[in-house]
């Protein structure tokens, strides 16, 4: 089981990877979304805000997200550190993502571009 701090650190690693990728920033400049990341085994909620191509990570939840990502803490940490692809836990039901299909696919594309295959 990962801790809230580990999830936060993994999100920061994800944010760092995102911010270093200029192409990704350009590609996402019109994709403004609020993503809620929540663990279902520990008390841990974070909000990712994508606005004008910039990604910020905030502690805590938001009321009206575009996408909700829910998984156990270990999966979330692995996912945002890039140790696993989102598709694997998604296909076995460990990772639950709520939102439009297009947004879910876009999120996966971003992960692919940050961490590779």
């Amino acid at each position, binding site marked *: 089981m990962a801790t809230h701090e580990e999830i936060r650190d*993994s999100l920061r*690693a994800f944010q*760092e*990877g995102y911010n*270093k*990728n200029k*192409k990704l920033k350009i*590609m996402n400049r019109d994709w403004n979304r*609020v993503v*809620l990341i929540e663990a279902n085994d520990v008390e841990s909620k974070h909000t990712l805000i994508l606005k004008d191509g910039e990604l910020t990570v905030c502690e805590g*939840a*938001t*009321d*009206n*997200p*575009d*996408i*909700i990502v829910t998984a156990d803490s270990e999966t979330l*940490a*692995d996912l945002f*550190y*890039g*140790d696993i*692809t*989102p*598709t*694997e836990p*998604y*296909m*076995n*039901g460990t990772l*639950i*993502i*709520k*939102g*439009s*299909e*297009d947004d*879910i*696919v*876009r999120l*996966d*594309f971003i992960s*692919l*571009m*940050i*961490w*590779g*295959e």
Partner: protein
Amino acid sequence: MVKLKKILTLRTIIATSAGLTLSSSTFVAAVQVAGFLVGDAAWLAILTGGLLCMTAALCFSELNGMIPSAAGIRLYFNHAFNDRLALTVSLLYMAVIMGVIGAESYILAEILHEAFPLISPLAWILVMFTVVTGMNIVGIRIAGWFQDAITYGLMVTLISLAVIGLAKIDFQLSAPLATGGAVNLLNAVAVGVFLFVGFEWVTPLAEEVTHSRLISRGMLLAIGILSVVYAVFTVAMTATVPRESLVNSPIPQMLFAQTILGDTGTAIMVMLTLAASITTFNAGLIGISRFVYASAREHVLPSIFSKISLRFFTPWVAVLSIFVIGVLISLLTLFSHRYLVLVNMAAAMESVIYVLAGLAVIVLRKKMPDAQRPYRIRGGYIIPAASALIFSLLALAIFTTFPRVFLYLGLGMLLSYWYVTRVVPRLKQLQRQKRASGRRRRRPVAHAEKQGD
């Protein structure tokens, strides 16, 4: 409480479920249904088919409520049985859907060739595939309102044309229950299931609605409305055009429209079929390309299929591969004229999927009795068991009537199983070796590239 910003309405759920089902090839299946029966009993077979599909829809509703995911059958069967079976069936299902797209493009090309005889069907096939592939690569999606307008408009027009046709010949239902025997009726119902193929493709939208009940209601309403539309339209077609002409034509709806309204009828039908096919075609390509992309991300297919366009954010290798395979299937259909094999294969495959869905409901109730089920089928195991049993019989009826279908699907299943048990483990092992770096120490690709790694 946290709530998503975007939510879909029941109207769009019905339109999506019915819209994915309504296509050019459904009319071919409708006259095949009538062809099995001696009297005007096509309506009976179609309504029965619809009713049976509703039992499957109830099973999908329970599964979808329990596991709301765009991964659909892959996830349901994974939880209920095992990943190997789920993957084997999903790969084969996608291959069969590719076949349906091939049949669909062939039929649509025939329709357009009928309307514009100077342009060959081959040219139409290439144009259609190129347009839809282009839309997929650029990432153009058919908007919800457009899907609503096309689906509801199409259903109203089909009913109107049927009423006009029936009124013109002063139709009297003379033999509404004359089926020609139980075997004929069974075969007609089995092929009639194809008329509803794809209603469950709406389940991936589970992540975009407020409550999974909307999906189940939408599926049931779509099947109900479609049953009535198909029943009335098929009776009108068989009452106004000689049955032999309809059964031997890949474009029976055009013959019907031409018979009742002449050139105006032809023009209306061309427009309708084009609109219906494009939405089905586009949705099919999107669905399959995403499946291929997701499979590559999961290391089930070679990683080349997970390449994405940096300009449009779309899985271009997956889309282009499907373009090539789709065109090949269409060309094979164009030269062999064996579109009915594809239609029957889809009907049989769909029956197999419904059998597994019924069994999955039963298995999951035993395996995960305490799991949350926002929708639970009433009456215990009766409906899921009946659904599994009925669709087993229907699949059997198709296999015995069309042994070639059994042969092709059997070979497909073996090939898919071989791939899942032999090739997939190797692909996964290769990926594990590539990804040997320790947890929490990986660096972003951009960073690693800068470092010269």
